[in-house]
């Protein structure tokens, strides 16, 4: 059974305007998105800025109000207001993008990591401290770190503190919103390796949100591409990288810089070709408003947004 089921998720933001500040329209940040994630897998959500990928993640944790649609977590509806009970929320945690701004600069590491524990579990001071030490060990930080403040750590270390906080309550699902975008490659490698390790250790499920296709290819089992609030393509890693069907996906893949300088000219030519194809066939892949069509199944795992035939 899927651990997370998202059905027809819509998140609209009102545009206020006019004399009485009435709602004059909506920004459809997430427009009818459905997917499900299996236990223990990593699901990648890719898109450019403004595609709605982060909003989708935030809606699942409960940081955004949902306009329509249903989110089922282990078969239970977590969308309705009533069910925003604490217990459910503890199983879904989030790792934020920027390790510099997502940790309170005036709190010590001990208090940062202990905060979720204080919210959900009744532990004595010494038990709490013990748990924090365990968590720090798990993320590979020194036990002395508990007395330090966030500014005393490097970017990678800070991101580990964020991870320690996220796994403090032994969650089942972690939403990682661009967890490595702010980091150098070497530190990025460290955090990615580490995320894979704790995934195995704790049997975690990840929703991995990123704009970096290279990282997504490395981490994810299934991948979805978003464009202006809608899915354009969804499939396994193999489907997306070896058999991309939608022109937008092709364009994204063509845009990844090639690490081999010998391919430079070929890559340049390929990119120009895809760009031409993108411009020529834009109307075939997007509707009159420039939005993606509904998804069509092209294989058991692979779905692409194409106009209905006929």
């Amino acid at each position, binding site marked *: 059974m899927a651990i997370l089921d998202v059905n027809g998720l819509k998140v609209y933001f009102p545009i206020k305007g006019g004399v009485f500040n009435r709602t004059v329209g909506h920004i459809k940040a997430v427009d009818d998105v459905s997917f499900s994630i299996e236990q223990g897998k990593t699901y990648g959500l890719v898109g450019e800025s403004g595609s709605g990928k982060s909003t989708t993640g935030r809606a699942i944790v409960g940081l955004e109000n949902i306009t329509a649609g249903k989110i089922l977590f282990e078969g239970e509806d977590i969308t309705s207001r009533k069910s925003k009970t604490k217990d459910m929320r503890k199983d879904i945690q989030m790792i934020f993008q920027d390790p510099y701004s997502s940790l309170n600069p005036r709190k010590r590491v001990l208090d940062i990591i202990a905060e979720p524990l204080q919210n959900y579990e009744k532990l004595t001071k010494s038990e709490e401290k013990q748990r924090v030490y365990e968590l720090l060990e798990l993320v590979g930080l020194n036990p002395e770190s508990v007395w330090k403040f966030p500014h005393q750590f490097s970017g*990678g270390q800070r991101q580990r503190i964020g991870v320690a906080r996220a796994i403090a309550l032994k969650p089942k699902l972690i939403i990682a919103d661009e967890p490595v975008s702010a980091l150098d490659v070497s530190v990025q*490698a460290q955090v990615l390796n580490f995320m894979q390790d704790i995934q195995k250790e704790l049997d975690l499920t990840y929703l991995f949100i990123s704009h970096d296709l*290279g990282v997504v290819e*490395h981490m994810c089992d299934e991948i979805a591409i978003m464009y202006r609030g809608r899915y354009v393509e969804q499939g396994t890693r193999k489907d997306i990288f070896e058999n991309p069907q939608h022109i937008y996906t092709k364009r994204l893949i063509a845009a990844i*810089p090639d690490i081999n300088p010998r391919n430079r000219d070929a890559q*340049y030519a390929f990119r120009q070709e895809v760009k031409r194809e993108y411009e020529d066939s834009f109307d075939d892949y997007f509707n009159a408003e420039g939005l993606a069509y509904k998804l069509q199944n092209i294989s058991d795992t692979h779905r692409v947004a194409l106009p209905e035939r006929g």
Partner: protein
Amino acid sequence: MSRKLLEIENLTTSFKIGQAYYAAVDDVSLTVNRNEVLGIVGESGSGKSALAFSVMRLHNRAKIEGKIQLEDVDLVKATTSELNQFRGDKLSMIFQDPLTALNPLMEIGAQISETLILHRPKMSKQERYDRVIELLDLVGISRPEHVYQQYPHELSGGMRQRVIIAIAIANKPQLLIADEPTTALDVTIQAQILDLIRELRDEMDAGIILITHDLGVVAEMADRIAVMYAGQIVEIADVHTLFENPLHPYTKSLLNSVPTEGQDRLHVIQGIVPGLQHLPRTGCRFAARIPWIDESVHEENPVLHEVTPGHFVRCTCHSHFYFPEEGKEEITNGNT
């Protein structure tokens, strides 16, 4: 080659922390030729941006020693008024963050005109307007007349970066420094901006210093690459040599930490880039991050060695380097 444009010799840029000065750029020498892209890579804290800012002389209170020879002028010795003549004219810079580099209260057209007014005072208003439109067109902005009257907040990130580039190339600079020009942008926009920079290089016959931490970007753009670590250049070579036969342990480690196909575990460089005050000023600066390598293989005062023509590498430790997950024998065999 007589196409040499910029020659940096023994450049040291130091910042004052407390009572003492600490070098962020430590004895760097390099050259940039015309119609060449020199890539500078390294982690944050390696001194690559400090180097760029030194060439532009944008540091406020830093101590700069050495020589930065741009054609017939030494920028280190130049006075502020001389510098103001060069900056934006012969020498210009593309900044990382397109949102903070533009004035939010000024129309796009006016911001581009500013540099023309300063360096081409004899231009008539009409000529200037035409040139701005031409520039906007050149950087691939459609409807330039419309964008001329817009404000930065009305443009997307990619468009803003194009405006920054338009400003930087307004006076056809001979040397263009691009400091992480695409880091803040989406991949498709990044690809467009990189293609644009490449076209400009050919068109203007300019030398470009491209600073980035993204190895994919330098692989696609650069002719030569300098790898910086802790303020020093640790390896410099043409792009093919550097990617096919990297020598310095730092270069190898960086290349191994990039996710590529069919790779299960990424390589992690142990430890962190030391802060300015804690930098070891003697011995191999990378030694602390490869502790499994025998200390005796490092030079006492590592210098750059020319291994093959044009390929320089610092310290002798590279010939004894192996990754901890590999056997020691394999590597020594591979290198002989």
